[in-house]
């Protein structure tokens, strides 16, 4: 029961992008297309699960005074592994994600979950937390990327979706940085409006 709750927590109630507002830099930068968003989300999820597991395993061994340094080393290690693996086995994805892979190191979702969850919970729950948070991050990225790719390029996964007869003119601004802010802002507004209905009573 607690396992399911932990996963749902990351996916919905504490969605890292839409609720916790963590990891905004990769969110804004890599959501120009759905394929990039999936790649970034899953790479971050892989790192998150691995780092959560290892940090949870070592949580009793790492002295609290040097825990941040230890977490960063572990996370950076996993990120580098992911980077090398992507470059070797998925070069296409590696090229389009480029600079953002090393940026996973400083993605505050990962350090945040290490500090807030993995350092206090069992290995199993930490792994599930990593899975939930990683999938939550991926879903959020895909949602933003979907909006941007459809409006900005008229495509989904690089395939044109509008019939030519419509003469759809894509708004390139949606693919540029302002489009990322616009999309994120509108989506956050919608989510807050939906949440506000149920949440106000408790607040």
């Amino acid at each position, binding site marked *: 029961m607690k396992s399911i709750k932990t996963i749902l927590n990351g996916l919905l109630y504490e969605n890292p992008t839409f609720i916790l507002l963590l990891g905004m830099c990769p969110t804004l930068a890599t959501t120009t297309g759905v394929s990039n968003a999936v790649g970034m989300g899953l790479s971050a999820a892989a790192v998150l699960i691995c780092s959560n597991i290892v940090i949870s395993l070592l949580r009793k061994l790492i002295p609290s005074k040097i825990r941040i340094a230890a977490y960063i080393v*572990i996370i950076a290690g996993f990120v580098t592994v992911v980077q090398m693996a992507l470059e070797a086995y998925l070069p296409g994805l590696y*090229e389009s994600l480029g600079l953002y892979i090393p940026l996973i190191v400083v993605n505050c979702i990962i350090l945040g979950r290490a500090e807030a969850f993995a350092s206090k919970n069992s290995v199993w729950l930490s792994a599930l937390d990593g899975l939930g948070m990683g999938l939550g991050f991926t879903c959020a990225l895909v949602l933003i990327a979907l909006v941007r790719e459809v409006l900005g390029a008229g495509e989904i996964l690089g395939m044109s979706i509008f019939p030519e007869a419509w003469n759809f003119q894509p708004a*390139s601004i949606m693919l*540029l940085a302002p489009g990322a802010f616009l999309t994120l802002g509108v989506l956050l507004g919608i989510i807050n409006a939906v949440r506000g209905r149920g949440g106000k009573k408790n607040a």
Partner: protein
Amino acid sequence: MKTSNPVVLALVLFLITAIVTFALAFVNSLTEPVIAMNTEQKITEAQQAVLDADEFSDDFDTSNIRLSETGVSVDALKLGFTDGECVGYVVTTTCSEGYGGDIQVMVGINNEGGENTVNKIEILSLSETPGLGANAQKDTFKDQYGGKEAGITVKKGGGAAGNEIDAISGATITSKAVTKAVNAALEAASGVVVSSDFTESVESESEEPESTEPESVESESAEPENADIGDAVPVEVGEKAEVE
């Protein structure tokens, strides 16, 4: 673990870093050869896509090539052979004047009767804006270069004719940078025959034997091939220069 003994702290952190380092070294040893193979394969595929030739020579030394324009450099130059005859060049150039930095372009150049024309181009790397400059990777843009000769110019707003290409809408800077790279490639290719200091570099580079047999001594562009046959070189280069 609660301790504030600095020696223990340092030791624990050292252990963690050491383990991570070894793990990374291990993964690197697994992936490095694959990455190197990928890069090589990508270049091989690209050169076969840009020039219709059976065999390609090794890279020539391009350090002596001097281009008339700045902001662009030649990274690699090869010859393509079909049935032992040189049919053209594959030149890789980098233009640093893209909107998002360097753009590396591989240009296949046909050489027919001494005339150099672009066969096809391939963008090897670029970091242009997705949806705008990155559209330079689309065939509709790249195919425009086919058949063009040196001195290609960019036309804004469509309707390119003659030796012009249509700029990508909203990405004139990218279009100009790619064009500059292509022009530089054509210039470098023409230098293979004309420039005397380049032929020197061809000589010095030709120590390793090429797979292609130099049977086409009389053919119009066989000169860099002949560089392989040691003493024949000066004569052949001289003849070549006259012909051109």
